[in-house]
């Protein structure tokens, strides 16, 4: 679990009972439903807009890198090693004579893909496990809680190291699938915990008891009554997790156990440039900056949403 996920769960998990009900988007000044109020707050939070803009930018780079740089990131020529900016290569060339700007732009795709799919995977696993544990309780809850303890007992990166060695055994492709599976297997615990505590809080609410008395089945209750209320903290945790997953992917690639060339990853480029930092700083700075901004964007986004949904922290 990453630092921020921890911070998110400690802050959110502490008061699952105050998780706001996600009622419709009524205008805040009048009725002030908590979701409406949250959106009202969010719209006035500049951090939210900065983060959202950055996210849009990164996603755009991932989808259509050609919009930003027409140069081929793999067209490298060692004769241009460390050459200064020229033409389209506004940031110059790196150790292998590749266009730094182009490589940085194209690096977004791997990060976004890994982050997105890893979050989807952890989201699904976390949702199912968290709901089951929270709703049915008893031995199932005890068992899943132990499983979470075990997974949390292995620091994410250490487990990822072992696991990626394992998955890397078949050396085919760029490694994106392996990294997604690694992150998915190891990263779902926070999401599951948050979902579990939200479900526990929602379960004890009167309207859930009422729905149950009216004969609604567990699936319907979970879907119609519990999920909407548990969604806000879940989304916050997943948004922040997206940022940390991207950072973890870069770290794995940096350690040479994540993505492999020909995949273009910021982590790989940072590792390579770091070794030659005395010769040229730009090949290090450019991917570092983009990686940081991307991670930051998702973390800020999650932070802003959490603040909006957390009435206690409002001033």
């Amino acid at each position: 679990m990453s630092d921020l996920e921890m911070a998110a769960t400690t802050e959110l998990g502490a008061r699952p009972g105050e998780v706001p009900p996600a009622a419709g988007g009524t205008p805040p000044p009048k009725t002030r439903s908590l979701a409406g109020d949250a959106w009202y707050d969010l719209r006035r939070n500049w951090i939210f807009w900065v983060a959202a803009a950055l996210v849009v930018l990164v996603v755009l780079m991932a989808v259509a890198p050609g919009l930003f740089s027409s140069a081929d990131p793999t067209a490298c020529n060692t004769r241009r090693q460390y050459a200064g900016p020229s033409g389209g290569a506004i940031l110059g060339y790196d150790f292998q004579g590749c266009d730094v700007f182009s490589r940085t732009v194209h690096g977004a795709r791997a990060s976004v893909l890994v982050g997105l799919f890893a979050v989807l995977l952890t989201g699904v696993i976390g949702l199912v496990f968290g709901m089951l544990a929270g709703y049915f309780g008893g031995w199932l809850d005890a068992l899943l809680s132990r499983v979470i303890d075990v997974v949390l007992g292995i620091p994410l990166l250490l487990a990822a190291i072992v696991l990626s060695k394992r998955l890397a055994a078949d050396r085919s492709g760029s490694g994106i699938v392996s990294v997604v599976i690694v992150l998915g297997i190891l990263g779902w615990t926070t999401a599951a915990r948050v979902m579990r505590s939200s479900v526990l809080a929602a379960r004890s609410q009167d309207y859930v008891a009422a729905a149950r008395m009216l004969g609604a089945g567990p699936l319907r209750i979970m879907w119609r009554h519990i999920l909407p209320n548990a969604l806000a903290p879940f989304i916050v945790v997943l948004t922040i997790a997206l940022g940390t997953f991207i950072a973890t992917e870069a770290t794995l690639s940096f350690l040479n156990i994540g993505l492999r060339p020909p995949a273009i990853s910021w982590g790989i480029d940072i590792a390579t440039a770091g070794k030659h930092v005395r010769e040229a700083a730009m090949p290090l700075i450019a991917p570092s900056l983009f990686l940081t901004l991307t991670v930051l964007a998702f973390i800020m986004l999650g932070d802003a949403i959490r603040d909006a949904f957390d009435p206690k922290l409002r001033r």
Partner: protein
Amino acid sequence: MARYIIRRLLQMVVTFIGTTFVVYALMFANQNDPLQALAGDRPVSDNVRQVLTEQYHLDDPFLVQYAYYMKGLLTGDLGRTLTGRPIGDVMADAWPNTIKLALLALFFAALFGIGAGLVAGLRRGTVFDNTTLALTLVVVGLPIIVLAPIAQLVFGVKLGWFPTTAGARPDLYGLILPALVLGAASTATILRLTRTSVAENVRADYVRTARAKGLAVRRVVSVHVLRNSLIPVITLIGVDLGNLMAGAIVTEGVFNIPGVGSKLLLGIQTEDGPLVVGFVSVLVIVFLVTNLLVDLLYAVLDPRIRYE
């Protein structure tokens, strides 16, 4: 208290068995050729194959293998690296540096994190608060693989304030920059949690009671607000240790510190499977034990837990 300790110990045993099993299983279970996986890309000679088969008891059923592995872990026998060195020796050489680095990093993190977090929590909404909050956000978003080389570039290469690499026998001064880098993320999270916690506790009823007693502000803050605010922070530090370990791999690698992390990194890069498994297992145990200690410390700090 005794009941709490016993319960935590039992829980830890279960988690311990679970985690080691998972680590071991990840490495060896359902592998077509576990030896090739251990050795990575390099060709495996018959000699090495035989040694490894013996070391990991690969001819035995899986659970027996795991039992041997557990026995080795508990007796401190971690086997040998692919190059034939006892893994225990490699660790013994590396630990002191890593412990120094980690303690220094934790010290910085606790010092700056709690100090600034306290001030920010007491003065919510001030310039100081907003600035530190923005700074921590940036730091949290800075992956260590970015922070370490950039810090090395700026403070080592360009400004020359610190040595760029720590060298074979790192002294305290050489460890300061790596420790700051390693502790940066923890500093930020500790700061944020302290701030939230302090801001909450300042408004607590018992703080109002303390003020009603006419205690000096300094005493109200240190004895009542800070003490109670540190309880969640202590827990965070325990969990953070896992990140510290991960960070140490990168930091030690970048600053060339001969510690557990850089040895592990070397093992990964040279695809020395036995070393990686051995190191990861020990690190996981260290993580579990520290978390147990943190839990006990938590009980010392919060009597409500103790008498549960």
